[in-house]
């Protein structure tokens, strides 16, 4: 199970970087979101995936480490905020020039096509 999830992290990182290296702004933002998901899942893995009982409660047996879950929650909130900011920035760039591609030289023509 751990190996499978580790592979999933690898796929997410690869896909995220692939999208990030593209020229479309929306793809880049999605790529960044995928990268942060990969990091969150790695944190989940760091406590192991044995699946014990909760720390609080009367159930007995090996307990699940609650700390990584708290860490992920914090990290998810932060990445949510940053993604929202990126989308707002992207929207503003769209308003400025009607284009959403970065780094190209012939931006003028593309922007007319997009509209």
């Amino acid at each position: 199970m751990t190996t499978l999830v580790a592979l999933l992290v690898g796929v997410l990182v690869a896909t995220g970087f692939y999208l990030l290296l593209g020229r479309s702004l929306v793809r880049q933002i999605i790529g960044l979101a995928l990268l942060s998901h990969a990091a969150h899942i790695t944190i989940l893995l760091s406590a192991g995936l044995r699946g014990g009982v909760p720390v609080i409660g009367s159930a007995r047996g090996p307990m699940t480490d609650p700390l990584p879950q708290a860490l992920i929650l914090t990290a998810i909130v932060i990445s949510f905020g940053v993604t929202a900011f990126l989308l707002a920035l992207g929207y503003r760039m769209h308003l400025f020039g009607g284009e959403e591609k970065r780094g190209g030289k012939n931006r003028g023509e593309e922007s007319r096509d997009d509209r």
Partner: protein
Amino acid sequence: MTDRLIAALPALPIVIPMLTAILLIAGPSRRAQRTLGLAGSLATLAAGIALVLLTRGGQVMPIQAGGWAAPYGITLVADMLGALMVLIASLIGMVGLVFTIAAGRDDRFVHAGWQFLLTGINWAFLTGDLFNLYVAYEVMLLSSYFLLTHGTTQRQAREAFGYVAINLVASMFFLFGVALIYSATGTLNMAHLAERVPLAPAGTVRAASMMLLVAFGTKAAIFPFYFWLPHAYAIPPGGVAAFFGGMLTKVGVYSLFRVFTIIFPSGGPDPLLLWSAAGTMLFGVLGALAQDSVRRILSFHIISQVGYMIMGLALAGQLGIAGGIFYILHHIVVKSGLLLVGGAIEETQRTDRLDRLGGLARTNGVLALAFVVCALSLAGVPPFSGFFAKLLLIRAGLEVGQYGVVAVSIIVSILTLMSMLKVYTTAFWGPGEPRRAPARLVAPAAALALITIAVGLRPQVLYSLTSTAAAHLTQPARYVGTVLKK
């Protein structure tokens, strides 16, 4: 009452700017915002001074947040290094804010963003927990994204997007490092990590340390992760650029100093960091020589100077680390001073391109003097603070026999001087009767120039403080013992 205030003091440099920022968001008038912003900065500065005085003898002041004892809760720790960094951050925050107000660039939520940025920076310096450091970073970065994109043009928005993207990728590496180190040791408290890392599997620890090196290295703009910096720092107006250029990369450098001494001690000169330091110094200054506007030249010099700090860390001895910390503090003052001079030129002449400037020394005597003092200090000419910073590093390098990196650092100093002379001879000499910059724009840079002169006249005062700070990093027993209450 006094005891409780002193016990709470390490939290104040975080709490004061945060509360100020929240009040500022409520949106009082421009005049009230200025008063509130300055008052908040001044109070933070006072807390920073008090922290330095209280940790002067090598004391370590921990706060266990919410009463949860370390390592189970979140720990804030003020030691000499953290206190010095808080002091310098609050000082630059204050001076930069004065400049921003003087230039009239403080519209809308700039004051609130500024205070949140100061919150994040001070938080990063005072936290004793690796994941909490990540949160502090994000508070700092989100504020910096806001200040960077505030009132930008289309081209600037695109550059800013690149800055946000590169920082997000670095943050992802940070989280990978945190996850790996937690899986290997089961703790994130820095003091507890210092005890547990030697017992953990070496492979995982090595992987985690490399992840953190990439994360902090990108934020500190070390070789080979520096490419984003000149683009991003060319965007914001002068006061913001001085705060960014002085402080933001140095938070990354600080994290490297903290993590690669206490948690991952190298026990001798680290070849990887030495190569990186040499590359950072050399490529930064070569980049600067190729530029033709004041702001871009200064941005490349930030990179080059970070190399010197990393050199101190890479040499790893007490003298190297103390020299590195001395260099960080000196550099923040001088670089912010130079960026404020650049900002004053830009605000009055409406350009900072060297081919459109000339004759500034004729009409702006004080500005020229401030530039010369900061530029010579940056290049390491006596009697300014930069000379002593470089002297310490070179001595540390010779002591452990790392002649290669010492040679690079001396060559880079000469190239730095050359590049500074290029700015001075073209912008300040030559033909032209440029407009005179008003005194309120010159004063902040002049104040920072005075600080570098003062440090240059009495370097032993600052050196004894950085020595104490370095002792906590090279022999973390006292830090670990105080935080974990042993």
